[in-house]
């Protein structure tokens, strides 16, 4: 057991180190950090909507760049190992194919963790800088308006509390966790596909297609579950496959609702994290099974 953990850890570590040295990924990470960092200058909205805009923009940027990084790093992993023949020396050792898949996947998960952490740090800095700008400009406005001293203090305090509550809302942490979970799901989907194909481009395109379909998975499940729906057997079979194999990405719309101001509870967040963990476990088990049958 300990040997197995050691092998998985060694594979995860080498995957992370290798990914961090890939120019394409480094450029993507740099762009992601720059996009989140410069979001301050994109905002031309009224001050009370600026925080909301920043939340929306930064969560969007984290998702888009994270998606690219998850897709590219996972899709090219096995083809690169085959091309460089490193896979032969690895699997010639007493390493199980499932350990190889789990180790490689955990390496990608670690990479996505580093990327999400980097973007989150910049995101939180940007958010707090914007909050301070808003507080300062509001204070200046109130000072110039000639409001009585007592009301002035109260107005400034209320505004400061409101802005800081928006910028330092614990729900932002929930949002970051959900973005990360979504990226890990995408990487798991890409992992499954990359075990049955030699083309990285095919893996990227197919995973992206499944990601898009994942936003409609809920409808497919509803149709399958509803006995009153009048669909043919082929359509029902197709929808059943979608409902069973593709994760429900729409459930992560909690992030968008959070940006709009809807309260997202920790119970809901943990529920989504649990769903992600379940889907990822199933996907990696399937990837291990498919990879164990693959001829190298």
């Amino acid at each position, binding site marked *: 057991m300990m040997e197995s953990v*050691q092998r998985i*850890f060694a594979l995860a570590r080498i995957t992370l180190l290798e990914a961090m040295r890939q120019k394409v990924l480094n450029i993507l990470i740099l762009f992601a950090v720059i996009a989140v960092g410069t979001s301050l200058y994109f905002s031309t909205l009224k001050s009370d909507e600026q925080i909301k805009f920043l939340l929306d923009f930064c969560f969007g940027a984290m998702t888009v760049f994270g998606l690219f990084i998850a897709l590219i790093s996972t899709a090219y992993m096995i083809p690169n190992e085959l091309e*460089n023949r490193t896979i032969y*020396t690895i699997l*010639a*050792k*007493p390493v199980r194919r499932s350990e190889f898949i789990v180790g490689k996947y955990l390496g990608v998960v670690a990479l996505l963790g580093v990327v999400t952490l980097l973007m989150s740090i910049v995101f939180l800095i940007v958010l707090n800088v914007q909050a301070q700008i808003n507080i300062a400009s509001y204070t200046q406005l109130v000072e110039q308006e000639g409001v009585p001293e007592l009301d002035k203090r109260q107005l400034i305090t209320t505004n400061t509390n409101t802005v800081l509550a928006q910028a330092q809302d614990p729900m932002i942490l929930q949002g970051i966790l959900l973005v990360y979970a979504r990226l890990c799901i995408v990487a798991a989907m890409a992992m499954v596909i990359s075990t049955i194909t030699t083309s990285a481009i095919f893996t990227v395109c197919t995973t992206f297609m499944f990601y898009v379909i994942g936003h409609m998975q809920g409808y497919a499940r509803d149709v399958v579950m509803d006995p009153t729906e009048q669909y043919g057997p082929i359509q029902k079979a197709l929808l059943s496959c979608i409902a069973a194999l593709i994760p429900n990405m729409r459930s992560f719309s909690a992030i968008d609702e959070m940006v709009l101001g809807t309260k997202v509870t920790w119970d809901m967040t943990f529920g989504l994290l649990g769903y992600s963990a379940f889907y990822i476990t199933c996907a990696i088990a399937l990837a291990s099974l498919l990879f164990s049958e693959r001829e190298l």
Partner: protein
Amino acid sequence: MPPANAVEIRGLTKRYRLPWKRKVLVALSPLDLDIRAGEVFGLLGPNGCGKSTTMKLLLGLIKPTAGEARIFGEKVPSLQSRRRMGFLPENPYFYKFLNGDETLRFYGKLSGLGGKALDKRIDELIHLVGLENGRDRPLSAYSKGMLQRIGLAQALLHDPDLLLLDEPTAGVDPMGSRDIRDMILRLRGMGKTVIFSSHLLEQVEEVADRVAIFHLGIKLMEGTLDELLIDRDRTQITAAGLPSDAAGRARTEEALRSQGATSVEFTSSRRSLESLFMDVIAKRKAEARAEDARVAAAATEANSRTSAGDTK
């Protein structure tokens, strides 16, 4: 009692279906082969003859269409069989950003080693393959020969009883090639079983105890080098100092025919190109060392004369 055979192959077959061409490609026709523990076994044949396929089947990298193989009695593929095997692929590539030490550490962890045992094993192997100067250098700066050496070291990490070396001397210069050949002999001395494939027949002849010749996935012949190479009807005599003129040769021929020889052929002894190459290089190195020693001695003498003059 441990099995006498390191490898037992029975009816091992590999066929690939080519659905688009509606054909079946036979990579390995049913193969029966026993390789004894402690012997060096050479797999010979042109490209695509089934050598690498046989190795991949033993490692479990591909699945057989039919038949089975056992490594020291362990069924293939299995973790147990891989624990007893080390593999060096043809033209091995490793993670270029790692240095020699980190590479061995990574493969050591995959082999279940760790802590001080791994440190000690890495030291031993770096010394065994002569990579002391490449230990801290990234593999991106390694020469082909150095990559083969680190490849051999990673194959030996978990002290396997059987080594599979796929074209271990491919692309390596004659000096490096000779080093690898010497290492194979050293491994045999350590009691390891070595299976290797090579296109360099002269080299195979020097190290292999037995060979098998493959062509288009079929094993054409198998045996010890003596069984395959000795022509019992012909005797080769190598003699120095015999007269080389026509009259002298006629007398020698007459003497041999009187002993029952039906045909006599005279050829001058010819050495191999590799032997000539190694001698020339060794001679040049010795000359360079002597020249260095001469220059150093002259410099020391000049210094001592200068010091003596200063003292006066």
